[in-house]
């Protein structure tokens, strides 16, 4: 579904990604794990076109999207929920959500099963949003903001959803709530790609992990086998 082939990306003068290659299949949940500065966020921003890729190729469902602008990539069905949530604080929660729907490709919405509207589908992930959707997005707690950010990306009717740090800053009590939500999204047939600095959180939901270090893929495979690799173990546990 999504293939990265030897991607190199710079942030200003600094080369962050040194030839990253990945393959993500339809319906998978994949987590990119690594320490800070390993290149997780840079990989995500390269995929969705917020950072310009220097060399290499990214293809999505067979189409080369390497140097497309962010909005045309989003319209092709790649949703993004950033680590800082990136909510539009001058808009209400509802307006935040709706923005995604206006730019979703109608063809994808039409393909959904009968009786399953986009709206129903989004709200089934985090029904709590119904309770605060009229509020200004400034007046939300950290957990609520994350819910809105993920739901907003869901409104794009994506076939691939990128979530950066889904569990960061969440209290343990809320983490399990989010884990269930992610499972639900997976059941809808949406492919998930997550960036996680916390390996144990990532292994809760991911079918497969890529461990990054200094802009290179160090390990690729099942989360439970990752710790068998001494290099991965060293990086993730010190």
């Amino acid at each position, binding site marked *: 579904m999504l293939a990265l082939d030897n991607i190199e990306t710079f942030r200003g003068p600094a080369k962050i990604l040194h030839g990253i290659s990945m393959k993500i299949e339809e319906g998978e949940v994949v987590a990119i794990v690594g320490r800070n500065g390993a290149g997780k966020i840079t990989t995500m921003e390269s995929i969705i076109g*917020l950072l310009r890729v220097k060399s290499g190729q990214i293809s999505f469902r067979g189409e080369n999207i390497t140097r497309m602008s962010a909005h045309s990539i989003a319209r092709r069905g790649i949703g993004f929920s950033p680590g800082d949530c990136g909510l539009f604080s001058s808009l209400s929660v509802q*307006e935040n959500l709706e923005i995604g729907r*206006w730019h979703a490709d109608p063809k994808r919405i039409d393909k959904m099963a009968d009786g399953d509207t986009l709206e129903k589908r989004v709200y089934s992930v985090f029904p709590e949003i119904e309770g605060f959707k009229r509020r200004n997005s400034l007046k939300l707690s950290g957990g609520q903001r994350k819910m809105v950010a993920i739901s907003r990306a869901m409104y794009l009717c994506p076939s691939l959803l990128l979530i950066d740090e889904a569990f960061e800053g969440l209290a343990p009590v809320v983490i399990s709530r989010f884990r269930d939500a992610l499972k639900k999204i997976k059941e809808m047939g949406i492919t998930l790609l997550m960036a996680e600095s916390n390996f144990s959180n990532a292994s809760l939901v991911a079918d497969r992990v890529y461990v990054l270090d200094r802009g290179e893929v160090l390990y690729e495979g099942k989360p439970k086998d990752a710790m068998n690799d001494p290099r991965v173990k060293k990086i993730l546990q010190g």
Partner: protein
Amino acid sequence: MDIFILQVLNALFYASILYLIASGFTLIFGVMGIANMAHGSFYAVGAFVTAWSLGFLQSRGVEPWLLVFFLPLGAIAVAILGMLIEPILLRPFYQRAHEYQLLLTFGVLLIIEDGIQMIFGSDPLLVDMVIAPFGSLQIFSFRYPNYNFVVIGTGLVTAFLLWALMYRSRFGVVLRATSQDMRMASAMGINVGKVYVLAFGIGSFLAGLGGAIIVPTQTAVVGMGLEALIIAFVVVAVGGIGSQLGALIGALLVALVRTAGVHFVPEIELAVLFLIAVGVLLWRPTGLLGNAP
């Protein structure tokens, strides 16, 4: 009493023009964070293009009442100018410090100010022939040209349309989202480039419209843009930069103060105006309706 009514009408007339200029300035600042130094010059271009084209059409024998429909020509020309300047000149510099945009638009200002002289010459242009077909209204002892009501009405209608655009349309939501976080907006499928061109176009159009509708009552002269820019600064400083309602209230306040100032302290009315801006900024640094970003 007569004088008072006349002064109020004059203030409203002036406020309408100021609002058109300031709302465009504040729109561009709100969406792109650019303090467009060339905004006053856009206003001047609107006036000159309208004056020149109406003069040209009249010389070709077009009836005065028909000419009225060509007034917006100046505004359209400025909108096109703006929609060229934004993508070509400003867009490559959004990643850089704000000082560069200020400097670029200052360069555009210098070019336009001299460009106007090169193209239209330095003689003032006036197209007062479009006023007569509107007739005038008897108010107590004086006659007030109906055209001035058209100008006041244009300001009011524009204010309403802008409000509807910002808060009652999808484009408004998109515009507000983009102005807050353009990266995130583009990740939500919004074509930020298009939004920017449109916003800059609308902002420029408003300044051009101000110039276009004032030129039947005042001559288009070299340097009119510089004064307009400074007064627009005062309007948005008083009203609150980035706020459309602020631009409206600021325009009304500034127009009233200036009209009163010209009446009572003609020598230093401009100084009074700037002092009021100073006072407002001291009291509320973000202007009357601005909120601290």
